[in-house]
């Protein structure tokens, strides 16, 4: 049985568009990511993914709960929504990388053919790690979070490295290979349309981000709207 699957470019464009759309929604939710660490400060999901220590992860969660009632609720709601939305983001992202890698594998011969097919299937492992990460964080986010044991925290760190490492390595290998085929002129005319669609999707994504971008001060003012701290 072959591990190689054949795909058209269209499913890639669709999956990639969905990933960008969900990413855009998640960035809007991220505008309400605030915590109270002596003063109100911004945090990002990366603070949860790569905390300096098990203690720091707990400190960030506690700091969110330290916000005045309504604001803590607002920040927590945004955080939880983003984590739930991430479950939809995962198949779109890992799916698009999977298809991309299979497409590159199809262009390769010998070792390269197998390598890119394996890289494509490895996305399943990254996806599982991402699901485990989200479940871990959703369980952790409570008013009195428990500091994980060193072994559990170490496992969480490894999970993060695997989750980020696999798609990044695959993405870079695919990009390098596609770049090579581009420079070598080894591509079909038909694939150019899909390349244009992909570029267009990226441009729309950044234009939307730019249109909704606000200064840190404006974001904080929006977050505080209606609260006593305004």
């Amino acid at each position, binding site marked *: 049985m072959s591990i190689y699957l054949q795909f058209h470019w269209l499913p890639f464009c669709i999956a990639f568009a969905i990933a960008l759309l969900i990413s855009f929604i998640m960035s809007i939710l991220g505008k309400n990511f605030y915590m109270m*660490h*002596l*003063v109100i*400060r*911004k*945090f990002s999901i*990366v603070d949860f993914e*790569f905390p*300096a*220590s098990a203690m720091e992860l707990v400190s960030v969660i506690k700091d969110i709960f330290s916000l005045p009632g309504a604001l803590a609720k607002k920040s927590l709601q945004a955080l939880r929504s983003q984590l739930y939305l991430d479950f939809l983001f995962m198949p779109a992202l890992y799916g698009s990388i999977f298809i991309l890698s299979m497409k590159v594998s199809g262009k390769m011969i010998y070792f*390269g053919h197998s390598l890119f097919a394996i890289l494509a299937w490895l996305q399943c492992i990254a996806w599982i790690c991402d699901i485990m990460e989200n479940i871990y964080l959703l369980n952790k986010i409570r008013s009195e979070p428990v500091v994980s044991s060193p072994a559990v925290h170490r496992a969480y760190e490894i999970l993060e490295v695997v989750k980020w490492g696999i798609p*990044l*390595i695959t993405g*870079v*290998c695919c*990009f*390098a*290979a596609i*770049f*090579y085929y581009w*420079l*070598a002129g080894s591509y079909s005319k038909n694939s150019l349309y899909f390349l244009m669609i992909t570029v267009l999707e990226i441009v729309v994504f950044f234009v939307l981000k730019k249109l909704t971008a606000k200064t840190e001060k404006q974001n904080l003012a929006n977050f505080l709207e209606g609260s006593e701290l305004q």
Partner: protein
Amino acid sequence: MPQLNDTKKPGGSVLNINDFIQNPAVLECVSELKAKFSNDKPFIVSDVLDKNGNQYVNLVQKGGGVLGVALVGYTYILELMGIRFLRLAGTSAGAINTALMTVIDKKEDAKSLSILQAICELNFFNLVDGHPAARWIIKKFITHNDFAGRVKKWITGILFVAAFLIVGDFLFLGLEHKFEFLSILTKLFFVLTGFYFLVIILIIYYVSRLSKRLKNSGYGVNPGNYFYDWIKEQLIANGVNNVTDLNTKASTLPELHLRVDNPEGTASLKGDVTFIASELVTQNKIQFPDMCYLFRTKDQIDTLQPAGFIRASMSIPVFFESYMIDNIPCSSDEIKKAWMDTMGEPDPPSTARFVDGGMLSNFPINIFYNPKVVMPRLPSFGIDLDDSKPDETEKNATAWSLLGYVGRMFNTIRFYYDKDFLLKNKVYEKGVGKIPLADYNWLNFFISDQDKINMFIRGAEAATKFLKDFDWDDYKNNRTVMQQALNKESTSEPKK
């Protein structure tokens, strides 16, 4: 509560008090002093005594990071000679020792051994409680003399490899049209280049995350939470839970009497403690706990945690996060009046942000100056941590690097406040002992146990030298003459 790790000696045993006080150099200091002062030549440093014969002085301790270990060596010798402390003040590391000397046991008890015990149980590196990457960089910068040079070499190497890969990509891409077998190598080079740039992008992203994190944490690399928890634990273990407890502990005195008559008597003698911190929002020097009334109304004073005062005093800018006091009732009339009367500030802040008191007054001996006392009953002692290096370039006004130039400007501003007081009141210098510590780095939280012992010895030796040279009668006379002259000057002023 963090676990305090025992500091281990190379052999695996735990550092203990005897490693400090039983050291031959320290024992030599003790025997020297005992030999110098006997029944024929009694040891006199003050006119204020308790019933056990302890002599009382005021003490100010200078800030200086880990050099603070030397302060304990100094105070150990003073206490061993029967000296106790009425009023205490300190900045930064000096504030830490001052705090412990205030809260441990009673005024008439010696405290240095308990402080040494606390030092033995404290792993200094735990105080550097920032992000692992920041800890690594700090460690490399402090322990490697030419770390900046090495970083420069790494950057050059990174750029060279990037250029090599890009050139390789183009070279093999061009060659494979003529030599088809090279296409495998071309693809490999492209993938390697991709990997390489991925790593560089990740490093850049990580560095930008760290700098964003630095900004979010108020431009402090280390949160200082470990220190805060540690000092709070020390205070609570000694019965100091709030500001009232701290003030009570600092002001509770044994029965005192004077060696010789003095018009002031003993009634006006009081004990207190002062920690210096720099407040950045209103740009003021704050004396804790005396100025607590600026941050809380009288009935709410005990909502402030005294550990925070010491944490504020030792917040070395950038190295530690600033300490903040928030929820200041800035709209209350009591607070408004307090700020106006004390600082001339009509608009009190709702949050105050503190950095190291050493920014403004690293050696606050001026707070013991009392113009009402003409003839002193007790001296003001000071412990100066002297880490200035005998470097020729320092004296050469044209030989400084940009960093050296900025450093000189910064230090001129930083030190002049205290220097100005000592220049105008030279007699106070007679009470100051200097501990030479030029060969130690004040930020080296990775110091070995042997270095801790050596610094303690330096402190003990400096105290020994100081006590051998100190002449109470001479000090008293000089201060009396100085004060009389100053008082005369001020009374004759209106006539002019």
